[in-house]
């Protein structure tokens, strides 16, 4: 759905854009009128090029920047592509991240370091490269955190720590950059559709357990994360800075302790009547 505003040729760098939420964000920002520099790891070059071709076929202006985001040179190249290609840089979407699963007692220093190199230090490198050249006032940054920035999930200890770091880094960066007119906000997705999570919904025994922790009773769509990201970047969010916006179907607010196969759906009135409540 096109937004009722336009980014009007302003320029966004999006990391981790070769699939999932990053791809959805790229497509949404393009549809909303932004020119884009899309980043992805070398191994995802084919997917990123396909997205770039697709967007260009629709008349959007897109540049690609491939490389390991753990290397600051990758971020410098992406920022350079924006300045050389478009002459400006307005928005940065820090979306790149990895979420390998491993039981706590099996984690190693190398495992921890790789997660932090990408999720935390890679994000900082992109911010460091971008901030001095960004439009100010008027620029905006989003950092993709996670519900795991606030509440732990099992078998993701190092990942949880990395996302906790992202959240607090972004909040403090928001404080630092607000006087310059650059807004920084945090998007915290919950369970979003991806090959791994789609498996959950296909397996009834897994999904019957997982769904009770998501009040909206479904996993989220990448486009729903993209919509929030687009809003936070846009001038419609002109007084929103340092905010953490959960995009999690209510997951972080509570869970439904229910056997969904017997929960009455729809009108609650029959249940109220059956227990003597108001009709």
């Amino acid at each position, binding site marked *: 759905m096109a937004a009722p505003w336009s980014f009007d040729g302003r320029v966004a760098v999006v990391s981790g854009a070769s699939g999932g939420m990053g791809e959805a964000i790229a497509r949404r920002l393009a549809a909303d009128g932004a020119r884009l520099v899309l980043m992805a790891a070398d191994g995802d070059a084919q997917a990123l090029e396909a997205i770039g071709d697709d967007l260009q076929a629709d008349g959007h202006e897109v540049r690609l920047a491939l490389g390991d985001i753990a290397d600051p040179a990758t971020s410098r190249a992406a920022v350079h592509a924006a300045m050389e290609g478009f002459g400006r840089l307005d928005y940065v979407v820090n979306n790149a991240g990895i979420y390998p699963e491993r039981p706590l007692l099996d984690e190693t220093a190398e495992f921890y370091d790789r997660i932090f190199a990408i999720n935390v230090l890679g994000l900082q490198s992109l911010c460091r490269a971008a901030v001095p050249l960004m439009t100010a006032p008027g620029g905006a940054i989003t950092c993709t955190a996670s519900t795991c920035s606030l*509440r732990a999930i099992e078998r993701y200890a190092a990942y949880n720590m990395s996302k906790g770091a992202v959240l607090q880094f972004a909040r403090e960066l928001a404080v630092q950059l607000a006087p310059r007119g650059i807004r920084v906000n945090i998007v915290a997705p919950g369970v979003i559709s991806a090959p791994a999570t789609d498996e959950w919904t296909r397996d009834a025994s897994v999904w019957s357990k997982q769904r009770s922790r998501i009040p909206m009773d479904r996993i989220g769509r990448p486009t729903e994360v993209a919509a929030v990201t687009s809003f936070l970047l846009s001038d419609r969010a002109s007084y929103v800075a340092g905010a953490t916006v959960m995009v999690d179907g209510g997951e972080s607010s509570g869970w439904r302790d229910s056997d969904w196969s017997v929960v009455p759906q729809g009108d609650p009135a029959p249940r109220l009547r059956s227990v003597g409540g108001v009709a």
Partner: protein
Amino acid sequence: MTGGRVAVVRGCLDELGSAVVRRFAADGTALVLAGGVDDRSGLADLAAAAATVVEVVTGDLDDPATARRAVDTARERLGRLDHLVDLTVASTVDHRGDAPPVPALDAARAALLPARRAYFFASAAARGLRAGGSIVVSLPPSTFASAPASAAVHGAMTMLVRSFALELAPYRVRVNGVLPGLIETRLVEAWPDDEPSGATAVPLGRAGRPDEVAEAIAFLLGEDASFMTGSILPVDGGLTATAPTSRRPAGPGADTRSDHQTSTRRPQPTRST
């Protein structure tokens, strides 16, 4: 903390660490004091003065083997391990007025080291604690340091507490955090009282004493907190209950577009552990 127990304490070379050691000694808890290579003589002095059995383990804190050695020392030399206390304090790397808001990679990585070291010690303890044991880590403040890379340590430590609490609960190991506010140490004595984040900003009107934090740590470690895990307890005289008063001195800030920061920062406490 009761007699006969054994604890590993990391990062104890300041007033808070000394208070924690005194608190343990009062209960007859035997200790392994762990620190970096440069901490050896300081820890030896602390051990000599402590009124309890103490082993000292020093080594490269950026190598997980040092944490494992501290845990092994507790188990092999002192017979068991009941508690880990990790007194992490983030070093604040870029408080100067002209510092860029995001440091270069090496500095950013260095700023995150306190969390990494705490992770190594908590991981080693997770493998060596008795069932029913407990871990307490101290957290650096989230915003006081005014350096994003240091705030990241607070976020990582917050999730260390929650992740380890969740995953060690089946072993009946509890993991909690303590969040000290302004505490009387040599570092803060140099601060003028009229600084916005000085004692006047604390609702209770004073800095805390190290023994007040040590008492909270002892509480979280012990049986009185037997249903607490994954909690982070502020010990700050009300500081986190309120919004800070103006963090910026009056004056600068009118032209903000060319500046990385709008305020000069007071001297910050720095510590490498």
